[in-house]
C-alpha cells in the first residue's frame, strides 16, 4: 500500500545548540523503519520523471522498490550501477533541484525523500555488507585520471568496472579532492569518502597521491607512459578575492584556505599540527554552499559570532535551502544586501612592532538595494550612497568563487580553454586534444559534486567507446 502522507519523513538531526559546537555529522540518517515508510510514498511512476532529473541517471523507482521489500543490499546494487559514490551523493547532492524536483508527489505535497533514501541505502551497505566488490577481468587498456575529486573518481570507477587499468593522479596527500579538503566533516564525514575510495581500489583503481599533473608529470608524458586516454578532473582552482583594501591583512582567508586548514589538515581537532584562527568574531563573504560551510566551520571552531555578508537578498542566496536553514538554526547572522568595501586592520601608531598590527579588526560594508534584473534574471545589487558601516570582526573568509587553475593548460599544448580559462569540451567530454577528456569544475567553473560526477560518467562512456572501437 502506498503511503499517501503528503509530508515526507523528517531527517533526524543533532540539536542545533549541540551541533554548533561539534564536528559530528548534522543529519543522523533514517532508520530501517523510516526508510521503508518513506519508500512507500513512491508511486513507482511509469515514466520515471525523477530519473530525468538525475545527472547520473540512477534507476530511482527501482532502488526505492527494493527498499519497500526490505532488500537494502539489492537497492544498493541498483544505485551503484549508475553512481560510484552513493554515500557521498546521498549527503551533498542538491536533490531538491534535481530528482526530487521532478517527483509527482511534490505537486500536492512534499516529494519523496530520494536523497535521504539513497543515503540510507549506502550507509546500510557500508555498515552491514562484508562482501568485497569483485575485480573485473582486465581488458589490458590503460587510462589516466587527473584529480581524485568527484568527477575523477566517477570516471575511474566506471572504467574500472569495464576492466580498464585505471590510475588516478592526485596532487594532495589524500584522495577525494573537494570531498576531503572542501566539504566539512559535519556535512560529509571523511571516513565515508575514504570508504568509497577503498571500494574503488578493490575494483583495481590505483591512486597515486603527491603527483601534480603539469608539474611532476605532464599530460604528454602520461601518453608516453602507455596511457591510451587521459581524463582531466582537476577541479575549480584559484580562489577569487574582491580586490578591496585590506585583503592581505592577517586573519583574511579564502574559503579554500580556511576549509582546507580545518578539513584536510585537521586543524579543527584539539592540539592540531596546522594552525587556524579560532574564536572571536568571523565574517564570511558570499552566499553559496561554500560560504555556509565556512560559516558553520567557524562556529564549530569556537567563534563567538559568525556573520554571512551577502550583497543580494535571501531570495537570491545561491546556497541550498537546507544549508541556509541549518546555518540560521545554529545562530549564524545573515547580513543581507551588504557589500564589503574595505577590511580594517589594527595599527598601533606608537609601536610598529606591536604584534597585533596588521591583524583584522573589522569589515566595512555598504548597504545595497536591488535594481533591474540582469540578463540571467537576477536583480542587480546597487550600492546605497553614504551607507557605510563597520562590523567588528577578527577573521574574514572570502567565499566568492574560484578561477580555473592554469597549471595543466600551460603545460599541455593544444588544449583549448574559453576566455574564463575553463577547458573546452564537446558533448562527450573530449577536449581539443585527441584522447584527452575533461569534466567537472575544470570545465564548468565551480559547480556541484553531482554535475562533476555526471561529467566523469559521460567521459568514461566516451573513452570506452573510443578505445574499444
Amino acid at each position, binding site marked *: 500500500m502506498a503511503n499517501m502522507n503528503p509530508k515526507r519523513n523528517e531527517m533526524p538531526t543533532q540539536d542545533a545548540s549541540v551541533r554548533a559546537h561539534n564536528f559530528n555529522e548534522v543529519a543522523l540518517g533514517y532508520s530501517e523503519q523510516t526508510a521503508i515508510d518513506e519508500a512507500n510514498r513512491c508511486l513507482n511512476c511509469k515514466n520515471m520523471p525523477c530519473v530525468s532529473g538525475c545527472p547520473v541517471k540512477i534507476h530511482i523507482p527501482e532502488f526505492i522498490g527494493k527498499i519497500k521489500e526490505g532488500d537494502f543490499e539489492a537497492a544498493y546494487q541498483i544505485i551503484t550501477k549508475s553512481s560510484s559514490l552513493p554515500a557521498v551523493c546521498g549527503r551533498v547532492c542538491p536533490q531538491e533541484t534535481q530528482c526530487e524536483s521532478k517527483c509527482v508527489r511534490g505537486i500536492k505535497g512534499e516529494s519523496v525523500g530520494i536523497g535521504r533514501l539513497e543515503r540510507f541505502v549506502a550507509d546500510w551497505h557500508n555498515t552491514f555488507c562484508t562482501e568485497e566488490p569483485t575485480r573485473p577481468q582486465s581488458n589490458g587498456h590503460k587510462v589516466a585520471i587527473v584529480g581524485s575529486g568527484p568527477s575523477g573518481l566517477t570516471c575511474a570507477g566506471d572504467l574500472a568496472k569495464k576492466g580498464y587499468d585505471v590510475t588516478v593522479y592526485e*596532487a*594532495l*596527500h589524500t584522495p577525494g579532492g573537494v570531498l576531503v*579538503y572542501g566539504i566539512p566533516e559535519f556535512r560529509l564525514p571523511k571516513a565515508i569518502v575514504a570508504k568509497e575510495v577503498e571500494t574503488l581500489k578493490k575494483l583495481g583503481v590505483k591512486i597515486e*597521491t*603527491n*603527483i*601534480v599533473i603539469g*608539474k*611532476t*608529470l605532464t599530460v604528454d608524458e602520461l601518453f608516453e607512459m602507455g596511457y591510451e586516454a587521459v581524463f582531466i578532473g582537476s*577541479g575549480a*582552482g*584559484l*580562489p577569487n*578575492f574582491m*580586490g578591496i583594501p585590506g*585583503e*592581505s591583512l*592577517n*586573519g583574511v*582567508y*579564502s574559503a*579554500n*584556505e580556511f576549509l*582546507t*586548514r580545518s578539513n*584536510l*589538515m*585537521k586543524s579543527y581537532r584539539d592540539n*592540531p*599540527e*596546522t*594552525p587556524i584562527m579560532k574564536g572571536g568574531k568571523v565574517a564570511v563573504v558570499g552566499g553559496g554552499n561554500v560560504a555556509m560551510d565556512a560559516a558553520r566551520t567557524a562556529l564549530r571552531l569556537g567563534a563567538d559570532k559568525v556573520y554571512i555578508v551577502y550583497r543580494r537578498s535571501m531570495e537570491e542566496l545561491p546556497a541550498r535551502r537546507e544549508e541556509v536553514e541549518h546555518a540560521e538554526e545554529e545562530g549564524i547572522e545573515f547580513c543581507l544586501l551588504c557589500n564589503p568595501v574595505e577590511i580594517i586592520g589594527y595599527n598601533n601608531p606608537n609601536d610598529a612592532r606591536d*604584534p597585533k*598590527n*596588521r591583524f583584522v579588526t573589522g569589515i566595512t560594508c555598504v548597504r545595497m538595494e536591488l535594481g533591474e534584473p540582469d540578463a540571467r534574471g537576477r536583480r542587480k545589487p546597487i550600492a546605497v550612497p553614504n551607507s557605510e558601516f563597520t562590523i567588528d570582526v577578527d577573521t574574514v573568509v572570502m567565499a566568492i568563487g574560484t578561477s580555473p*587553475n*592554469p*597549471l595543466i593548460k600551460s603545460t599541455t599544448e593544444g588544449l583549448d580553454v574559453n576566455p574564463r580559462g575553463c577547458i573546452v569540451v564537446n558533448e562527450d567530454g573530449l577536449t581539443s586534444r585527441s584522447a584527452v577528456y575533461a569534466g567537472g569544475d575544470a570545465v564548468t567553473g565551480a559547480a556541484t559534486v553531482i554535475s562533476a560526477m555526471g561529467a566523469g560518467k559521460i567521459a568514461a562512456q566516451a573513452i570506452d567507446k573510443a578505445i574499444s572501437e
Partner: protein
Amino acid sequence: MYKIVDKKILNPTVIQLLIEAPLVAKKAKPGQFIILRVDEDGERIPLTVAGTNPENGTVKIIFQVVGATTKKLSYKEQGDCIQDFVGPLGVPTHLNGLKKVCIVGGGVGCAIALPIAEALHAMNAEVTSIIGFRNKDLLILENEFKACSDTLRVMTDDGSYSEKGNVTLPLKEMLEAGERFDMIITIGPLVMMKYVVATAKPYGTPVTVSMNPIMIDGTGMCGGCRLTLNVDGKKVTKFACVDGPDFNGYEIDFDEAMSRGRMYGEFERHKYEETCNLYQKEVQ
C-alpha cells in the same frame, strides 16, 4: 613514503637530507620547491630544492630548524621515511641570457642560492657570490660556493669569520666602485632581501627575490601564500606558489610579507616547545 638516503648536519641548526623521489629529481630546476609532510597529520611545509640527482632519483633539501615540523624532520635519520613529498612546484628561476650575476644569500637561504650559482656557472656566466651568516658556527657551503663563483665574499654579522658586517656592505661597495650586474638574485630572510633591494635601487640593477611565505597546497588552490606587488603604481595580488617563488624585488611589499609570515607566531612557538619537550621525554 619517501626514504631519506643520506643525512648531513651542516651546522648546529641546519641539516641536509637526500630524499628518494625519482619523479621530482627528474624535473626539478633551480628555484623550484617541494612540499613535504613529516608524518600522518603533520603540517605541509614548502622547502626550496637545494639540488637533484636525476640518475639516483634523489632530491637534496637543506633546512633550518625553526619550528615544530622542522624539529621533527631533524630527528629523522638515514633510512627513515617521510610521509609526503610533492613537487617540483613553482616556476624555475629565469637564468636565460644572464652573463654577469651577483648572488646574495643569507643563512639557510644560501642553500637555495647555491644551485642557481652552479647553474649560472655552468652557463659560463660570471658569478659573484656574497654569502652571509650570523657567526662562524652557522657558516655553510663555503667550498661549494667557491667552486662556482668567480668572486666570493663571506660575511659574518659578528666578524667571527671572514669579513664583519651584513651582505649589503660588499654589494654596496661593488656597485659604488662601478661593478654592474645583469641581475642580482637574492635569497634569505625577508628583511635582508628588502635591504638588498634598497641597496641596488640607486644603481637600477634588477633584483630577483625568492619568497617563501606560509602555504598549504602549493598548487594555487588555497591562496594563503598571496603577496601584494606594486606594479606600475597598481597593487596586484600574486600567489607565490604558482606565480613565484621568484619575483621582481622592486615590486614586493616586504612589510606585508613579513607581517603575514608572523601570523601564527604564537601557535608556532608553543608547538615548537611542545615538540622539543616530547622528544626530550623520549630520550629520557
